């Protein structure tokens, strides 16, 4: 056994062509698998971001409640999650987590004391980075 190990260690010949081909194949397959996975992940994100569409159906400045209710409908091709709501460029507390499936609508409630007659710039931001913003006048 010891002789065999010594013979193996003293052997200075290069690896066989079969082994070299095998190694090359393994390396090539690994690299291409990585490239395919990376492409899939990147394009899936891109695809989901491209498919987001939102509609603000209604904005209700509720009297006495110190809150603004925004009715949002998902008119896109993917489900959405609202990440932040800005009123006049200031982040506000809302009923988080707020998720909408395709064609679903729901009330997004923002806790904010509003003043009658004032104009508010409401900006809704989704987790994937889609913005929907507009000006609304409090009654």
């Amino acid at each position: 056994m010891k002789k065999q190990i010594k013979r193996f260690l003293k052997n200075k010949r290069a690896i066989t062509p079969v082994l070299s081909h095998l190694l090359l194949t393994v390396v090539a397959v690994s690299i291409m698998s990585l490239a395919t996975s990376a492409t899939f992940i990147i394009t899936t994100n891109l695809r989901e971001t491209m498919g987001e569409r939102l509609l603000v159906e209604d904005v209700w400045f509720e009297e006495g409640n110190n809150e603004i209710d925004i009715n949002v409908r998902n008119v896109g091709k993917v489900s959405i999650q609202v990440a932040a709501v800005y009123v006049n460029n200031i982040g506000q507390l809302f009923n988080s987590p707020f998720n909408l499936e395709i064609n679903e609508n729901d009330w997004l409630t923002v806790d904010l004391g509003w003043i009658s007659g004032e104009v508010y710039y409401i900006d809704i931001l989704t987790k994937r980075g889609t913005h929907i913003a507009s000006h609304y006048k409090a009654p």
Partner: protein
Amino acid sequence: MLSLVLIVTIVGNVILWSYQMNQVDWERIQEKLEIVSIQETVLGVLIVFENGGSITSHVVSLWINNSTSHQRFEIDLFIASGETTSKLFGNIILPAGSYTTKASTERGNLAILSA
């Protein structure tokens, strides 16, 4: 080789998706829905819609808003291009005083009428 084919397929799908979303946006722009009139009758509320766009509109919701209440009604109404149609809603009660009527389409457009 197989990986290259896969990568080309994935990228091709993204390009196709982009085209489809452009089509969705284009259709949304083409839609021109209008609420012509709203009046209370003995049988209910009669609303007249007009589709001035070049494609069929699918109205999915109706809003009757005033300062104290915002009511949403789920509806399912298709209006062909260039068509003016009236629809009677027996379940709607109009509020006293001034109010706003809104209709939203499946593609994400709004038609608004203040009365």
